[in-house]
């Protein structure tokens, strides 16, 4: 493996990790909202959150491209007012990874929240804990395993993201080259050996991530 290849692996890993952290507060809030209450518009939000999971990734990427491009609703504002560009920068990679892996986190976290006994939260309130304290001292710790499993899945998904990334970030060497994009390009230009090396790294990373997630879930079941 060349230095350049290791740099691509490193870039992919840290942007994936960052995207997982970025989606965590928003994902947990969504998951909690979807777990407990019944509120008007809930089914619409549920469906929207699941969309990146079932739509073709390039389709999601296209939507992001239109939204965050310089002529887009959000991108235009960022470019004109804040001189801040998203498309074709590493921020676009972060955006694509976040959007594509969010549904996985929300799903796992939601299930984990639903399994928390509501009585425990109620009793915590009678003991004088307000809403936020109950959430952080009771709900989240009890849902922790499911949340962590969700984070790992999200991370693994981010590692392997391709369709949306290539749409919004392109494959700019040194700036937005991820593992998947590089494998694709290597095959295109005939650098098969490089492609296979990176393929090996991808497989190892993905395997480790999924195996660890399953391990956590198995442990959760055992302590019941």
């Amino acid at each position, binding site marked *: 493996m060349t230095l350049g290849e290791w740099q691509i692996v490193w870039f992919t890993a840290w942007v994936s990790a960052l995207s997982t952290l970025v989606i965590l507060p928003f994902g947990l809030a969504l998951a909690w909202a979807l777990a407990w209450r019944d509120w008007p518009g809930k089914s619409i939000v549920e469906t929207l959150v699941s969309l990146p999971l079932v739509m073709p990734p390039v389709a999601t990427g296209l939507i992001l491209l239109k939204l965050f491009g310089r002529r887009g609703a959000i991108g235009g504002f960022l470019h004109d007012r804040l001189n801040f560009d998203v498309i074709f920068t590493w921020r676009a990679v972060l955006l694509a990874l976040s959007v594509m892996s969010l549904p996985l986190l929300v799903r796992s976290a939601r299930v984990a929240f639903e399994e928390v006994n509501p009585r425990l939260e*109620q009793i915590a*309130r009678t*003991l004088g*804990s307000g809403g936020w304290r109950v959430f952080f001292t009771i709900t989240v710790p009890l849902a922790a395993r499911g949340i962590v499993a969700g984070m790992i899945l999200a991370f693994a998904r981010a590692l392997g993201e391709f369709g949306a990334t290539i749409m919004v970030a392109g494959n700019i060497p040194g700036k937005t080259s991820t593992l998947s994009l590089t494998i694709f390009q290597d095959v295109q230009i005939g650098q098969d050996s490089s492609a296979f090396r990176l393929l090996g790294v991808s497989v190892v990373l993905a395997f480790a991530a999924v195996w660890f997630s399953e391990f956590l879930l198995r442990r959760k079941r055992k302590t019941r």
Partner: protein
Amino acid sequence: MSLLLKNISLPLESFALGMDVEVRGRVTAVFGPSGAGKTSLLDLIAGLRRAPSAFIQLDDRVLTDTAKHFSVPTHQRGIGYVPQDLALFPHLSVRQNLLYGCKPGGAAGRLFSFDHVIEILEIQPLTSRGVTELSGGEKQRVALARALLASPRLLLLDEPLASLDAPLKAKIIPYLTRIRDEFRIPMLCVTHDRSEALALADEIIVLVNGQVLQTGPVLDVFNRPASADVAAIAGVETLQAGVITDSHEGLATVKIHGATLTALAPATGTREVFGCIRGEDVILQRDAAASSVRNRLPARIMALRPEGALVRVELDAGFPLFALVTRPACAELALREGEPVTALIKTPAIHLVPR
């Protein structure tokens, strides 16, 4: 302490909860069969549930007033709650559970000191353990201690003894009385067990199908149930329909299934009544010797059921009649199934309830 529960109206699955009472005693039992809405009532008082109509006031503080759309959030009510499933936090140690409700600022803000509480409830050796390692009785005491350490002004207990077996019940009751006496916290106890109510409570509220049927001191309600429903719940063993055939000088002659009994005449001049006879008030005798007892019924023993130190004897005196006698007495009289005995019931012990 005074807890006002006025204009309560809460629709539940098959009936509506409605009350209008003031709770004053040190320990009040909310007594009724399972599913009568008792847990919902506690939830309402704790602020865990909303009702379409409710006015709840604890001492001088209004907690809920639906007419003004006002409701104090649960965590500000200062009402301790020990639910039936105890709800100990499984991810925290016993010590962390206990300290969960303690306000920061040390002992100053607390009504009872940590050491005092764990001493009274005898849980010192448990503090470092995990919650899952505790036995049933230990969990119960930890849950009680946790609620107390949050310095509540009122303690709600949902069937505190229901999930315990008899020996354990006997062990826990003293702790509860200690809480009542040492900590002097007013308690509202939901139960469907007569002996729990008798052991703990001063006052009792009888709740059936969401409606309050009777309130008052415990013994009053048990000895003088206001209606047949209350009588049935109060566990008066024998409850049979009868007809008053004659009544004068405060005494009534009542026919119950062919047996003629003398009882105190009820206040109203009804003819159709229920006769309530508690098992404790039925004396068994082998032969029909003379005594002051007016009511002597020949009966046949149908079944014998031991209940701790007592034996419940099911008799057929023309109608099912229950007697509670001690074990030694049972052995002394050599009571056996199928044998004939005479059942003696003092007149004042037959309580007639109009039907």
